[in-house]
């Protein structure tokens, strides 16, 4: 019997659930819109239950793995803080186990995506990996010695809230100058708007690919900030591979070229060390749910 699990990716705008087999293949999927941050935590929970119930119909599923955009505790059950949702110390794992009648593991969405890229995607050749996901904000995750590095409280890898500018732009987390205010989907749209292009997301990528210099300039700007921030991660942790995922990464080389330049120009001792390659994530938007499903299967 094939061991099937469900992976659920809970993002700021979308909740995606999938039945995943042990080879990382998606057999069925269901998407929902994420309820806004002003709604009660239980509304988000209802939406997750709906999506899982929907997708598991007709499949023999043994466990559910959640990848959530937030700080998840070390015990992989509780979402301590989700900047883009209303969760505060939310016992999500326990609640979902009761409602779904299956074992549920909860992890940070970026941890889940990294695990998927390591098992089935762009970083299958490396055990020391940093993943940067560029979506609404920045998610991040670390693989050290082939294992997801979660830190003491389960909150490692929150690269988006490393400070890159003292007294810089205000961030939803309540602080200022966070990296994600300069390098994210939101920052991209802002750079484009300031330069006179009122486009967001895929439209901006399409314009840049079609030769729009203003749109390309916005990608060059967040690419530059990407390289600057990655240089900090490489200085601290010296990973063998950097994987860039999230919606913004669909821009590919438009983003990575300026990032590589900025990385080489910002990294301490750049001429005397191996500069790790920057690669676009291979599994795209599915990485989070595939990784969450695999983590629910193989354990942490």
């Amino acid at each position: 019997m094939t061991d099937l699990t469900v992976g659920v990716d809970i993002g700021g705008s979308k909740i995606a659930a999938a039945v995943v087999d042990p080879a990382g293949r998606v057999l069925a999927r269901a998407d929902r819109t994420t309820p806004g941050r002003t709604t009660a935590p239980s509304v988000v929970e209802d939406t997750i239950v709906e999506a899982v119930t929907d997708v598991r119909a007709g499949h023999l599923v043994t466990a559910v793995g959640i990848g959530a955009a937030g700080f998840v505790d070390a015990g992989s059950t509780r979402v301590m803080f989700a900047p883009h949702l209303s969760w505060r110390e939310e016992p999500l794992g326990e609640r979902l186990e009761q409602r779904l009648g299956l074992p549920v593991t909860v992890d940070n969405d970026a941890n889940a995506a990294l695990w998927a890229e390591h098992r089935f995607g762009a970083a299958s050749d490396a055990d020391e990996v940093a993943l940067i996901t560029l979506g609404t904000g920045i998610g991040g995750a670390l693989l050290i010695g082939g294992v997801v590095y979660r830190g003491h409280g389960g909150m490692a890898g929150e690269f988006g809230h490393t400070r890159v500018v003292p007294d810089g732009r205000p961030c939803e987390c309540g602080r200022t100058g966070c990296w994600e205010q300069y390098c994210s989907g939101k920052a991209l749209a802002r750079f484009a708007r300031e330069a006179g292009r009122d486009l967001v997301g895929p439209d901006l990528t399409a314009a840049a690919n079609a030769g729009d210099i203003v749109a390309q300039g916005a990608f060059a700007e967040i690419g530059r900030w990407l390289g600057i921030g990655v240089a900090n991660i490489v200085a601290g942790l010296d990973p063998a591979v950097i994987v860039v995922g999230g919606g913004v990464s669909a821009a590919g080389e438009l983003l990575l070229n300026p990032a590589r330049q900025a990385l080489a120009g910002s990294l301490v001792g750049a001429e005397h060390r191996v500069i790790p390659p920057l690669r676009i994530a291979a599994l795209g938007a599915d990485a989070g749910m595939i990784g969450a499903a695999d983590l629910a299967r193989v354990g942490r």
Partner: protein
Amino acid sequence: MRQHTDEAPAGVGVAAAGFVAEDRSTIYFAPNLAWRSEKIGVELNERLGCNVVVENDANAAAWGEYRFGGHDNSGGELLALTIGTGIGGGLVHGGQLVRGGFGIAGEVGHLRVVQDGRPCGCGQKGCWEQYGSGSALTKGTRGLVASGAAGSAYLLEKAGGDPAAVTGPMIGEAAAEGDAFAQARIDEVGTWIGVGAATLAAVLDPRLIVLGGGVSEIGDPLLDVVRAAFEANLPAAGYRPVAEIRVATLGNRAGVLGAADLSRPRVDD
């Protein structure tokens, strides 16, 4: 445990302020020294006639504190920051030093904290160690004393009238005696240490941060500021456990003890 006689050491551990390659012998780069791709270990091995293991100084200090510092090691986690001329970092995870993909993890002194900031010995600008190190403290203070900044008279007197003679311990001493100018200098550097440590905590989420190096000898006048800035800048503060920040217990011996222990032939378990 392996027993050693005291006649001949089984190995020599060298802790060096540089980027040490995975081979534990080659130094790729030393921001504050002239070394560029030096095979230090091989050369010392030939001259000393015994096994030489080269380790990054801050990694060695982290290992020394972890093994012999008397900290609560449950969980096998420790982040050590060595704050002296620069800022060195060493991370112990799962009871082992984290070395990275190419051997040179932990160069946290070169995290960029200010864009287009102060120039650094590494060739970059705005590196953390230009703001939160012992050198930053003494350099900044000497400059202010030399320019006759308000309140700097006491420190100038302590330095025998020569601004260039102001030292880190002198600043610590003056602050402990209640000198507001000296305390303000410590506040500034301590705040940078706390801000940088909060960025590291966003990435690494450590349970225990041990501060070593010369600057840590200032003790509480510094530590209180570091802790306050750390907590004020920690993402999701209030919804997460806050790492404990302590002063290193081994002082300058941490690096030597760590390097020696790391040079020991490993017999697991």
